[in-house]
């Protein structure tokens, strides 16, 4: 399965404008309760944390549990007052991280 984070953020915005941010990561979000075709347990593999930061400051974070669907999708808002870079990090159970950056110009 492709594990590329998908992020939808406008490239430019007015000062103080509230923009909508859509993020999605292709990920199975295995709960660890499912059996595969051979009758073996599929090991647990979830995204447990998501953090969005802007210019080094945390904007939004989320603790995700088994109740979140496959391909965790999150849509939230951010108020931007200066140009800078959004940084999105997804933390997997095994310690792996998926990172995505996005530049935005504020005029």
């Amino acid at each position, binding site marked *: 399965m492709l594990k590329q984070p998908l992020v939808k953020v406008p490239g430019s915005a007015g000062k103080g404008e*509230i923009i909508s941010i859509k993020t999605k990561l292709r990920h199975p979000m295995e*709960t660890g*309760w*499912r059996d595969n075709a051979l009758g073996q347990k599929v090991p647990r593999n979830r995204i447990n944390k998501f953090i969005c930061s*802007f210019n080094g*400051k*945390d*904007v*939004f*974070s*989320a*603790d*995700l*549990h*088994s*109740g*979140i*669907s*496959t*391909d*965790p*999708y*999150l*849509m*939230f*808002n*951010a*108020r931007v007052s200066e140009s800078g870079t959004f940084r999105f990090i997804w933390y997997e159970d095994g310690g792996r991280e998926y990172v995505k950056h996005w530049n935005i110009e504020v005029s």
Partner: protein
Amino acid sequence: MTRMTLDTIKLTRRQALAAGSGAALALAVQGFIPDAAWASPTDAKEMLTNLTGGALLKKGRVHVTLPRITDKGPFTRITVAVDSPMTDGDFVKAVHLVAERNTVPEVASFFFTPMNGKAEITTRIRLKKTQIIVAVAEMSDDTIYIGKGRTKVSRGGGGCG
């Protein structure tokens, strides 16, 4: 003739367990006993108390948008919006989602800052069966508001969650 619902199955399972292991084994063969224990609204309430520290839950300000009926329980779109100016002095600290009839009731916790501008979150959650989803919002002045939404998961549309 009474129609057998999930609740009656659950009851018979309990009775069977109390009656003897033979009956329980028969039910296990039919696949009625899941690996993890069934969650109940009581568990969800306990979990909420742990999350909020036993504070008083006020009604209002939290709006939960859910489809009235869905045939895709594992992909239920949910929007939680909280009435808040989101300024430095008055903002929403966190929103917790609890699905009380799922295998594990906790779904997610979202943490906001004044930089969000709007306390609104849209995501997709897994629903095992028809149930009420509870959203709890923690404000910056430590008051806690609660909002609820209900979705009917149509027959055969539930997911592992």
